[in-house]
């Protein structure tokens, strides 16, 4: 399957390579660069590129390309999913994944890659197992290791590897036993220029941070589990139990993980918590005008916070001279992105941004209007109305501290102008 991996930074340098079979020449990346040059943005790079003898499957994350080299037929999603898992692991280990961090920790990175893939086939990808095999670097441990001569690499097989719960390590101990659940809902919507909802759905996640000693067996139930249209689980969730009782029953991995992602589809009605009234005109003579007002809508009494509007302007726009009555705005003449950071919406005085737009004189005006990408968060609200009913723990004696937090965010929330 995967023979080699090249990591390429945004300026096109191959700064790390790893081969699981015979080494593959670096010049192979030239095919990749060829394709990359043809497209405008790195996002547009095709994920699969065929070269005469190899297939390059790449992902673009954290401003880096991770290019896997295969020589034979393989499900492309298999490789893509694995590459994403690699990046997730790096983020998990080093708390962020950038070029400098990878370069600094090249030994750990190399050891990780070696454990994750054997002869091109995934071996251990579960974060809990990896962390037992190779300890994540931190300053304290580095110092301790230099003094005691111990190493970050484990000499025994992680117990999880052989058990039924490969995602959890054994012998977990905490003085404070805590379990936190974040119910995050993202509203994806397309709103047309009249303000009507073309398409809206909710994408939700339950991210957990679980620090419980021993082997806790948790059950999480919801007030209204019927809401879910479609769900996908962390492998720890017992599917049968969900099928029959709509209860999440699981032995959690240690630490942070995503327990569940769900989808509430376009068949149901989704409350749109914000509206934007906009008026834009791009005329050749006398420049253009822009007037935008933002207001809350269907928020069930919560305030809408961290509101940001991002408008990628057409190429012909040279500059914007605007006055906001709230927040700050900026216009980047190179990327042509108008960014208006509003903050929280005050109902008594609705945020407004108006002013004039300078337009390139010679250019013929295209009949294309930009779209507004909206970002916002609403705390303590799950917009679908989802509520966690209760969390029970079996298998351990202590009483854990439990917490649930609800957040609604804008996902791919777009307003057509």
């Amino acid at each position, binding site marked *: 399957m995967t023979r080699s991996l090249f990591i390429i930074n945004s300026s096109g*340098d*191959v700064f*790390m*390579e790893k081969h699981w079979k*015979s080494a593959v*020449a*670096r010049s192979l990346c030239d095919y990749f660069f060829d394709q990359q040059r043809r*497209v405008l943005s790195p996002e547009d790079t095709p994920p*699969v590129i*065929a070269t005469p*003898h190899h*297939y390059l499957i790449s*992902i673009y994350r954290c401003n880096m390309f991770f290019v896997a080299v295969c*020589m034979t*037929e393989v*499900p492309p*999603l298999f490789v893509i*999913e694995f590459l994403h898992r690699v990046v997730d692991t790096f983020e998990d280990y080093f708390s962020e994944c950038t070029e400098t961090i990878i370069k*600094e920790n*090249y*030994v750990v990175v*190399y050891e990780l890659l*070696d454990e994750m893939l*054997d002869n091109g*086939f995934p071996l251990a990808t579960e974060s809990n197992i990896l962390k037992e095999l190779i300890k994540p670097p931190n300053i304290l441990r580095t110092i301790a290791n*230099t003094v005691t*001569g111990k*190493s970050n690499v*484990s*000499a*025994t*097989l992680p117990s999880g590897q*052989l058990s*039924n719960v490969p995602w959890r390590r*054994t012998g977990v101990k905490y003085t404070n036993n805590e379990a936190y659940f974040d119910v995050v809902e993202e509203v994806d919507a*397309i709103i047309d220029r*009249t303000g009507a909802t*073309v*398409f809206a759905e909710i994408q939700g996640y339950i991210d957990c941070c679980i620090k419980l000693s021993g*082997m806790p067996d948790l059950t999480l139930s919801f007030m209204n589990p019927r*809401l879910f249209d*479609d769900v*996908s689980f962390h*492998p720890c969730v*017992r599917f*049968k139990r969900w*099928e*029959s*009782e709509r209860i999440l029953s699981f032995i959690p991995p240690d630490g942070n993980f*995503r327990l569940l*992602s769900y*989808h509430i*589809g376009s068949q*149901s009605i989704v409350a749109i918590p914000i509206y934007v009234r906009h008026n834009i005109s791009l005329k050749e003579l006398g420049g253009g005008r822009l007037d935008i007002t933002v207001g809350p809508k269907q928020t069930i009494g919560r305030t809408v916070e961290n509101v940001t509007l991002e408008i990628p302007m*057409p190429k012909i726009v040279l500059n914007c001279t605007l006055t906001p009555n709230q927040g700050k705005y900026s216009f980047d003449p190179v990327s042509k992105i108008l960014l208006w950071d509003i903050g929280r919406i005050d109902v008594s005085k609705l945020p407004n941004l108006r002013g004039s737009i300078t337009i390139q004189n010679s250019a013929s005006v*295209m*009949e294309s*209007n930009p779209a507004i990408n909206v970002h916002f968060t609403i705390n303590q609200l799950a917009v679908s109305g989802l509520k966690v009913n209760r969390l029970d723990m079996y298998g351990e004696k202590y009483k854990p501290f439990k917490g649930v937090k609800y957040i609604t965010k804008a996902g791919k929330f*777009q307003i*057509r102008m």
Partner: protein
Amino acid sequence: MLTAAANSLSNNGGSYSNDRPSSTADPEFATDPASGGFFHSDYKKHEDLKQMLDSNKDGLKLEAMKRIIGMIAKGRDASELFPAVVKNVVSKNIEVKKLVYVYLVRYAEDQQDLALLSISTFQRALKDPNQLIRASALRVLSSIRVSMIVPIVMLAIKDSASDMSPYVRKTAAHAIPKLYSLDSEQKEELIGVLEKLLSDKTTLVVGSAVMAFEDVCPERIDLIHKNYRKLCNLLVDVDEWGQVVIVNMLTRYARTQFVNPNVDNIEDDENRPFYDSDSDSSNTKKSKLTIDSDHRLLLRNTKPLLQSRNASVVMAVSQLYHHTAPRSEVMIAAKALIRLLRGHREVQSIVLHCIASISIARKGMFEPFLKSFFVRTSDPTHIKLLKLDILTNLATETSIGVILREFQTYISSSDKEFVGASIQAIGRCASNIKEVTDTCLNGLVSLLSNRDEAVVAESVVVIKKLLQTQPNEHKNIIAHMAKLMDFITIPQARASILWLLGEYSDRVPKIAPDVLRKMAKNFVNEQDIVKLQILNLAVKLCLNNPIQTKPFCQYVFQLAKYDQNYDIRDRARFLRRFIFDEDGHTKKLPQLAKRIFLAPKPAPTLTSRFKNSEYQLGTLSHYLDMPCAGYRPLPSFPDVAPEPSVRDVASGTTRNARDEYYRKDKKDKKGKEKEKPFYSDEESVQADELNNENESSDTSTSDSSDDESDSSEYISESEKSENDENEKKKSIKVSDESNSEKQSESEESDSEESSENSQESEEEKYKTSNQEAVEKPKSNIDLLLDLDDVIPMTPVMPLSTGGLFTPINLNITNDIREVSASFIPIKKSELLSSIMGHGLKIEYRFTRSQHLVSAYLVTIELTFSNEGSEPVKEIQVGVKNLPKGMLIHDFTQIPLLEKNSELSTTLGINFNDSTQPANFNIDFIIGEDTHSCSVTIKAPIGEIIRAVLLSESMFTTEKTKLKGMNEHVAKVQYSGNKKVISQKVFETANVAIVSSNDEEIRFAAHTLASKSLVLVTIKMIGNECLEICVNCEKMVIGSILLNELKSNLKMN
């Protein structure tokens, strides 16, 4: 110091973009201590590293190894250090050792002789008591690609394949393809090892074993037979990556071993453009009758994997369903695929590719998710294009309105490539759906006046194609396009217009010659493609209207004769012969010219680019649309299924295999003894199993103890794994066993009633084992019925509370599951006419879906359309006049409904299990006037119940409870097709099929408010008569439902 070194390394690394840096001293090396640049002579390079490696301090060694790994990571050559590094393979420090391994794997190939020095260390490590060390020794040994050690590796693999530790066995499975690629002559011997590993019962091993199988001997499908059922049953617990490989392999297996489940309704396929829900339900019934039980096992056990977080698992299952499942069941994959669209960009791209392919073959599958394919401006271009393609594939008469409106907004996008594709998509919709052809054509013509030239050009090209498919009168469009010749500069568009003028010159006899005149004037400045079309136009005009156009024609040909491009010169020379009889020898060509040039031409068909992909879905080949190395085409289903008994495992080996065996056996018997078709429901299978256990009670007593030990399995194991080295071997053995137990356990938990039934059966068995043994010869069916009656009466309390994957407590009510409707009515009824509503028209429809707010509410879709001349504002529910207990959940206020527009929203009504109508007012504002119209919704009885699934046994017991007053029976004359009975029932009421056979069909539902069961049984008596029996606690509902069913079934 370490980080400093790393930094300096990384600073240098960037500049080395060629694969082999020169080994001579390079100015860059001077600043790099790690590369030994201080010494300028070659032989002393890396001297410091060598010294560090030779020292006896672990810290220094580690430091040196880290730097060397850094060099390798940056792709620089570190092979010179081989002798110094290889010595350290014996190091006690685990991290040094690991890094040496990494180094070895990378360079052993280049330094074969030296690499041999390390072999003895690995051989020793293979005997190490620590399983991790054994495993990693095997890993590295097999990764050293030196052909001389093949026999050693072979031996090591053989040994490790029977190691105690599943982890080592897994590594052995990984080593097999490595050795195979090194020396393919070992194949036969490796297959022997592989066979052993494939029969392994640990989830950890089987995934890797199948991976090795796929790599080494995918053609030896016979190795799978014996393991097939085990693989299916273990699948849920295998790691994600193993799942993908196994499912892909089983897809191929299913294609060779089972017959096509859709074979009986292939005619349908060709007649129908897509499958609506009604045809689905009838198909279900038919296909279930023919599907092999092993095939069913595969489909059933893969279904939960659609919920996996791993996109490639979901994809693998989806393609399995696409390629091997009965048509009606493929639908379930749609939802999961849609979910993947929220994933990373790369995942989206590949999933959309697959959806595009599926959407051609199965149009109905993604229709409900149409809106998920709407394009956002933030999508990357290639994603946009894929979405566009899918939208076009999905377009039908009903959805075309929405789609065209979307396309319209896309045209004003700033992404030019996307705009072009949108216009082409409109063209495709127009040619595929005859109803909208004219609308689209008009729309495209209006685009001709767009200010953006690219838009105009693309429209011209599309209009040209459309006009060809619609050869009727479109004179004015052609005339309009002729005028555009003066403005458009894009050659493709100019050429298209010229072609159109030539083709239809008889429709515009005055314009065409004039255009030719203008073209002739400017001939030299045109692009080649335009010049060719000018020649074409000239010839065609000359044939139609020689008097007016001959001089132009001659002029153009004269110019073309001296053109720079030889294509044009050639073409001119060729075309000349048709119109100018210069030499005058044969007159044949000019005579035939009209028939050649003005022959009616077949219209182009506008199809998706995914039309003819014959590759397996989700493969690399499918994505790239070309055969990749190692791609194996999916075989087509055999006409006759190969002998299914090959999958039977010799009796007594494993518990579940035996169960399967009996199940199969049983099925055959049943088929012979009574003409009762086998129940496809899981419940009935479960019942069969119970029965079998009773039959074989003597053999299965020993197994029951296994079951009970399951419960403590998990804890015992974790304790054991903490044990010290001495006891390790023992513990491994135990965990091994427990794994195999788990397998049998997972088999049980497959079916709905999971552990509880087997538990009962166990109890049952103890009680009755003696009697049963005597009564064996009794018919199987009797036993089945006996048990059916007994099951729900025995107290249900599973003992295995600690079992990991078994639910802790199942109670019986949970066995009634609400399921989605088998049929969704699309007929709308009028709630408010546009005359009564001052221009506002409201229609309603029952969607039979769960209401968001509460399960008690009936979901009603309201469609508002404004047919008046003014916009309607603030539409909302006004005064409600409801009977007691009834409740309306308002729809959200509609602020504005423009004239001639339409909008849908959802209303929820709790009818409180009555057929009383709900009366309420709809308030709205037109202009300045406030209107309030009273409306009434009366739900048919079939809409206030919701389909549920329950086990057959439960159906029978519940039915016996609801006798007497609660039972309503009637007979109906029925001469129509038996196969559509269920369809008709679905149309009448929202019920689900519990079981169905030739004589009797059972349906179930429950009322929304009180959740009382509604059980419908339809018996066929003779050829002409049906007996309908409705059991319901609520007598009124029962009798009304019976009447409705009667009248609906009578109609034919």
